[in-house]
């Protein structure tokens, strides 16, 4: 039980940090994930379904944090809606890097400054896909379930994300 809960928190911290980019948000999302996983743990029958549930829970918590950060005035906004603003420039959900220097240092030491910078340059809609698929190692089907888009769409976005990321890494 303890191991499962710690693992859930690690997933929450990593995904939140990589998708949202804010260490403080990542700490909060980690705490949310702990409480939600703890209440859900009794109903876990299928480990794969639990994994999808956990990532979806974390993603939703990230979305809530993001909305607070960008002061969305009304309605619910999904990460996917960022795509409508165009994928080559900053997405509508992009937020400035407000991490404290100490936090930034900690994150850079773990992630590497180059990759952190390259990930931040991706529109949110693509960043979430590449984080779930290439960093977290989820399958295309799992990513489709979590982000609620088709598998074909996941593949298209993943290709775009990888290509942009490669270009960014080469430019650094």
């Amino acid at each position, binding site marked *: 039980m303890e191991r499962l809960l710690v693992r859930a*928190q*690690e997933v929450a911290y990593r995904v939140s940090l990589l998708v949202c980019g804010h260490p403080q948000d990542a700490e909060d999302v980690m705490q949310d994930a*702990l409480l939600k996983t703890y209440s859900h743990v009794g109903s876990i029958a299928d480990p794969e379904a639990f994994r999808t549930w956990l990532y979806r829970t974390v993603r939703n918590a990230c979305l809530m944090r993001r909305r607070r950060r960008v002061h969305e005035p009304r309605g619910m906004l999904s990460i996917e809606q960022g795509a409508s603003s165009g994928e080559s420039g900053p997405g509508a959900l992009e937020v400035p890097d407000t991490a404290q220097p100490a936090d930034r240092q*900690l994150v850079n030491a773990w992630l*590497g400054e180059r990759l952190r910078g390259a990930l931040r340059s991706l529109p949110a809609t693509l960043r979430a896909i590449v984080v779930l698929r290439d*960093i977290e190692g989820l399958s295309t089907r799992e990513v489709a379930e979590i982000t609620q888009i088709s598998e074909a769409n996941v593949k298209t976005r993943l290709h775009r994300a*990888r290509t942009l990321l*490669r270009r960014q*890494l080469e430019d650094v």
Partner: protein
Amino acid sequence: MNADACTATMARIDAALDGDLDAAECRAIDAHCQTCAACATLVGGLRQTVGLCRDVGAAPLPEDVRRRAQSQVRRLLRGQSARE
């Protein structure tokens, strides 16, 4: 450069990166890359990028984050057993 081979390589590169191609198909991509510098650069860059991402996914989180996660879990479980 063979435009058809370049198109075929680009169409299959993500499947190759994801391990969804068989050995013969992977060899075809590699063979094409030996004769096409543009595709070789692109394929090499994408392999490195995906490799970098996978390394991050496999790397442990910073030690103090892991310690905090563990102590939060232990606090929660201690509180639960005290209530029981």
